[in-house]
């Protein structure tokens, strides 16, 4: 009960701070609902998208792509295309074979993982529809695409490999000569057999995580340029820094001769966390031709060839006592890699391995993941990457367990979750959750949702046999994010670290330039970082400028993904500010003729304790610039760098509740209300946080109800356009009710946790649980995603027998 009161109070405080808008003088910037600095260029159309770039003499690239899922290439003839007006060059994969290298995979998850060669342009064989087989370079984008038709390609069809289970059969056709099993990865803790032996309840299910297309609104685009010595690549990427290293290794262009720029980037959600064929090929083409080249994908090209997400088959079983307490969990996962292993393809399902236990205590856990090759577009990170799949499985299972035991789904969770006083808590999957208050978030969510009233309405509708049934779905989740402690990544065989870098420069006029290694693509780093710096250095929010996304400006970074920017990159900014302040303190002490230890720093000034003497940080900056009167041996610079490597992941959590109305006659589902109470620790900017939650919800709901990449029996992708692959529109979604509880992280000085993926991770099971809950009295125990009217209707018919 006390927890309920606490939650309400925190939530009210949170709600009040949200309403404050512009900060008042003396009030801290961190926590203020600042409007974003980024917006000015975005609402006026002065944005710099990669496709906006036009350089003198620039050529346009178009790709001939495989119409087949799997085939041997027997002939490519580009000569007719080469003769067309405006066409400057045309190449086949064979023309580029000697120099194109292979696309990298940075995550060899096991020592014996099969890592096939992945040429940027296919040479011998195509292994998924859309794979590039030739390119045309022309003076105009229309002429380039005209010329594609003049390229002649002969294929000798090979069998498509589409179904993961069948792909693992010994007689299956092979995607690669080494076979279709890419790796098997296992994790076990506790004695699972003992936990399942004589367990009063065992719930066993198979869930399909359908294949998704990330669908950032900005299609990918690349511009490459060279002066004959060094190269510049503009790309709509989330990872300019990682990309530079990887491209240097792949193309042989020395790293110091390669500059990578991510201009404004129109969303990513993991899809732009990649080293793409087109990026490599654009560099090779500009090197060959000596002229700038540009490639911009069409949406249909993108649906085929931007890496896909999810696509897992989850066989899961849960053992529990008669009181609903969990004993053990077994997970046997097939993960569709697609045709090749791209940057982190094999690692994505393993990010979920540590999350199947969710927020619950149990005695044993057994996890096996088999990576499987098919003739489809490779999968890779998509918002949540492994964790939505894991959360879906455990949260669906908890609802099934509740049904089995005749318990309320909230109650069954309450009996199993880690209590507030048990933190830090070492989970069965080997992580240490630093903090959380699952009861507080749940109680607040129940209150906002009007849980009891909705349950009463549900009972009434069931009673009177209303054709429109009400379903209530629960999802209590946590996730590991803030990728990541470098040591942990190393122990998982990941190819890089997880630190982040920042530089803070005090300019002579007292303004501040921040250079961050995080690379935003819509999140609002410029605003949030300005808030952190404003507090740390006592300067106005407006006096801070943030630079990012250009390796020529920001030389060092690990970029933006895995909800890591604030908890890793923001911390680097804070640490750099600390160093600036300490340098300034020495100089201020000298100017004030006081001991550095006698100075306190408040509201942007160093003050000598007990006297009125003070110097503002701006005055110190100017004095440092002039350098006329500095202490002996002190450099005339306040500028400082920091590289921050976290000790632990970040564990945001929350409780999401969804009410749906399901028309049992048509199968149509309508979300009636959705409540999300998230706990992301302390918050730098509540407006941005709420925005992240909203967007995450939309994507998670998209998976639950609308989205699916569909390949036909021949291996052709059917969902190549936005008319076929349905992302939710405004008309498909409800108004979201969101709130927060705040349990500060104990692993960083700001007490913050990641938020970028939370909404996506939590919402998919909340929605599907609601759909199943609506139909449970009719004997329905599962509806495969996406829960389209047809699927819902079919589930009702099948249950009716």
């Amino acid at each position, binding site marked *: 009960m006390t927890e309920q009161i606490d939650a309400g109070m925190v939530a009210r405080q949170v709600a009040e701070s949200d309403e404050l808008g512009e900060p008042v003088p003396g009030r801290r910037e961190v926590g203020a609902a600042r409007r974003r600095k980024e917006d000015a260029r*975005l609402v006026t159309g002065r944005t710099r*998208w990669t496709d906006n770039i036009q350089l003198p003499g620039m050529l346009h690239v178009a790709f001939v792509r495989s119409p087949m899922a799997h085939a041997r290439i027997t002939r490519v003839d580009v000569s007719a295309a080469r003769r067309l007006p405006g066409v400057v060059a045309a190449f086949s994969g064979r023309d580029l074979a000697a120099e194109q290298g292979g696309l990298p995979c940075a995550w060899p998850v096991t020592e014996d993982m099969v890592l096939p060669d992945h040429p940027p342009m296919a040479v011998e064989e195509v292994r998924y529809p859309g794979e590039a087989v030739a390119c045309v370079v022309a003076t105009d984008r229309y002429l380039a695409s005209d010329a594609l038709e003049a390229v002649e390609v002969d294929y000798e069809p090979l069998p498509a490999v589409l179904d993961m289970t069948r792909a693992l059969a010994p007689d299956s056709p092979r995607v690669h000569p080494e076979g279709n099993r890419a790796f098997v990865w296992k994790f076990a803790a506790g004695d699972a057999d003992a936990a399942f032996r004589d367990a009063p309840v065992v719930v066993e299910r198979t869930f399909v995580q359908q294949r998704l297309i990330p669908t950032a609104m900005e299609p990918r685009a690349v511009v490459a340029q060279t002066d004959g010595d060094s190269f510049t690549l503009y790309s709509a990427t989330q990872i300019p820094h990682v990309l530079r290293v990887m491209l240097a290794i792949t193309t042989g262009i020395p790293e110091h001769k390669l500059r990578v720029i991510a201009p404004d*980037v129109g969303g990513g959600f993991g899809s732009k966390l990649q080293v793409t064929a087109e990026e490599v090929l654009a560099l090779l083409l500009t090197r060959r031709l000596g002229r700038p080249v540009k490639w911009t994908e069409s949406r249909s090209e993108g649906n085929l060839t931007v890496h896909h997400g999810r696509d897992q088959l989850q066989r899961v079983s849960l053992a529990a006592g008669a009181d609903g307490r969990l004993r053990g969990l077994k997970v046997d996962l097939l993960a569709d890699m697609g045709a090749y292993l791209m940057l982190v393809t094999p690692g994505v399902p393993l990010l979920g391995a540590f999350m199947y236990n969710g927020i619950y205590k149990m005695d044993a856990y057994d996890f096996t993941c088999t990576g499987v090759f098919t003739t489809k577009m490779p999968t890779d990170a998509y918002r949540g990457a492994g964790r939505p799949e894991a959360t879906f499985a455990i949260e669906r299972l908890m609802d099934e367990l509740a049904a089995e035991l005749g318990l309320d789904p909230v109650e069954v969770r309450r009996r199993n979750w880690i209590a507030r006083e048990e933190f830090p808590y070492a989970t069965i999957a080997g992580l240490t959750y630093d903090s959380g208050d699952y009861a507080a978030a749940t109680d607040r969510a129940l209150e906002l949702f009007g849980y009891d009233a909705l349950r009463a309405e549900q009972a009434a509708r069931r009673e009177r046999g209303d054709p429109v049934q009400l379903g209530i779905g629960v999802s209590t989740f946590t996730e590991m994010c803030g990728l990541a402690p470098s040591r942990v990544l190393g122990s998982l065989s990941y190819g890089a670290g997880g630190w982040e870098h920042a530089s803070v420069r005090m300019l002579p006029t007292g303004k501040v330039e921040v250079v961050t290694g995080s690379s935003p693509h819509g999140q609002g780093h410029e605003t949030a970082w300005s808030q952190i710096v404003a507090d740390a250095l006592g300067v106005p929010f407006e006096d801070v400028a943030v630079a990012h996304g250009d390796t020529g400006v920001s030389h060092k970074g690990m970029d933006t993904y895995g909800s890591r920017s604030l908890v890793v990159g923001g911390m680097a900014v804070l640490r750099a500010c600390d160093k600036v302040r300490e340098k300034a303190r020495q100089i201020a002490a000298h100017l004030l003729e006081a001991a550095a230890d006698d100075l306190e720093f408040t509201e942007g000034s160093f003050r000598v304790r007990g006297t009125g003497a003070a110097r503002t940080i701006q005055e110190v900056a100017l004095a440092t610039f002039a350098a006329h009167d500095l202490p002996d041996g002190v450099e005339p610079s306040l500028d400082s760098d920091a590289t921050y490597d976290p000790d632990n992941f970040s564990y945001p959590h929350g409780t999401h509740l969804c009410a749906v109305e399901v028309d049992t006659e048509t199968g149509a589902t309508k979300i009636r209300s959705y409540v999300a109470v998230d706990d992301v620790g302390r918050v730098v900017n509540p407006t941005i946080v709420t925005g992240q939650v*909203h967007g995450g919800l939309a994507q998670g709901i998209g998976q639950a109800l609308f989205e699916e990449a569909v390949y036909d029996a021949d291996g052709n992708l059917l969902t190549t356009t*936005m008319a076929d692959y349905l992302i939710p529109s*405004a*008309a498909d*979604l409800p108004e979201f009710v969101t709130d927060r509880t705040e349990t500060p992280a104990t692993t960083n000085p700001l007490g913050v946790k990641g938020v970028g993926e939370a909404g996506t991770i939590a919402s998919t099971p909340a929605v599907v649980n609601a759909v199943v809950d609506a139909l449970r009295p009719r004997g329905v125990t599962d509806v495969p995603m996406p829960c389209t009217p047809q699927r819902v209707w079919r589930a009702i018919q099948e249950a009716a027998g």
Partner: protein
Amino acid sequence: MARITVTVDGVAYQEEVEPRLLLVHLLRDRIGKTGTPIGCDTGNCGACTIMLDGRSAKSCSVLAVQADGAEVLTVEGLAGPDGWHPMQRAFHEEHALQCGYCTPGMIMAAIDLLKDDPDPSEDAVRAGLEGNLCRCTGYSNIVRAVRGGARAMRDAGAVGDR
């Protein structure tokens, strides 16, 4: 090649265009109006929405030659001497954008929506913006912004006039 005259954001342009050239490519590639982006190739996303003779149109679904003699308004021409258009301000205030890629189209579609319904309900906004997709925001803040922008425009007497 056809010779066309088209006014974009108050400036008249005379261009020689291929009959197949899309209006959005004329805007972006020829006259440098890159504020209007392209999000798809099937007319589904609405990112490219502009005003064509005062009503919204998806500029990827209009040929440049069809715009001959027409008046085009893009997001770049919205702000006036007194600063941003109320709808631009509302999007900023309500945090109705993240990456901002859908924003120009969303703002133009929103302004057009108000021409028929100066005080739209939440449902009316959602239905009215069905042809404009956003992958970042989940739409809640967009809906609020459109209604807030509508209020500001009504207060300024700037809606309903065709």
